[in-house]
């Protein structure tokens, strides 16, 4: 339990570090991504002594779907706009996303086969 709290605290400190750099230096990268880079550095520096950070972090990652729910329900705010422009939005997302997903997959697979041969 103590190890979990300790690991969780390290991750939180990186999160705050990210927020601080974002605010103080007005870096245009979002704060959680800066925090992610900080945690990466911490893990890299602490090498073999970072087991407790890894196990706390994995608990957090297991609950990632839960943490998305409040933001995801934000679609409730745009009911009217979604109804007015339903079809353009619908086709942009429902067609655009699979098209770019499949094309990008094929592109990367092709580039990988080039570098292997």
């Amino acid at each position, binding site marked *: 339990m103590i190890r979990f709290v300790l690991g969780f605290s390290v991750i939180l400190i990186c*999160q705050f570090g990210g927020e601080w750099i974002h605010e103080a230096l007005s870096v245009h990268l979002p704060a959680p991504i800066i925090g992610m880079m*900080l945690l990466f550095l911490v893990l890299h520096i602490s090498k073999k002594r970072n087991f407790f950070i890894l196990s706390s972090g994995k608990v957090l*990652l297991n609950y990632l779907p839960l943490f998305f729910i*409040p933001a*995801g329900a934000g679609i409730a705010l745009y009911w009217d706009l979604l109804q007015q*422009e339903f079809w*353009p939005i619908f086709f942009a997302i429902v067609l655009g996303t699979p098209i*770019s997903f*499949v094309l990008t997959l094929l592109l*990367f697979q092709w580039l990988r086969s080039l570098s292997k041969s």
Partner: protein
Amino acid sequence: MIDFKLPGLGIALTLTAYLLARLFYQASNKSTWFQPVVLGVLFVLLGLYVFDIPYERYFQDNGIIHFLLSTATVALAIPLYQNAGLVRHCWRALLITLLIGGALSSLSAVGIAWILGASPDVLLSIAPKSVTTPFAIAISNEIGGLPGLAAALVIISGIIVAAIASPVFSVLKLDDVVVRGSVMGMIGHGIATARAVEMDMKTAAFSALSMGLMGIYTSLCLPWAIWLIRSVS
């Protein structure tokens, strides 16, 4: 009469929705169409409707859970760190894919919406649809879209990628985890990464890395691209 607007209800709703979503997900034998994110959001929307709770109120109650979304985003450094060595040997192909894939993702969606006559507000909200939610909100502010709508579209795009990933991989007979994970993260950001975590940690590592790179790339380039289009037209 019970007052359904008491502060504890918002969090209780999220947790109940999540638990129910997990139960359904287990019962469906982990079907891609019954993921906890999708079902959880649907159950919450149902709860908001049934109990007549405004979203702003619900979101205020859920501050702590939304806060932990950022914490978990920071924790995505873990799969990245554990697999950093794997990324080294294929960074050229990854970077080229990122540059082309990112442009493709924005342009295809904006192009379709534009042809079908979407308003400028909506077009600007669609443009950052392949980046993770906090990125999308920041970019949307920068280019003058609607941050909340952008966030919702980002999440729907992520849900689509998370849902179609497994079927698409088996149709294309794609078994390279580097390609699988990277493209899931590029096009489906955090939600697809959450799905990748369920597949295996190697897929998750590439997904997390690509999600970060895509966010950086889009937030650096999209404001310039829109400025260029505005000054030409």
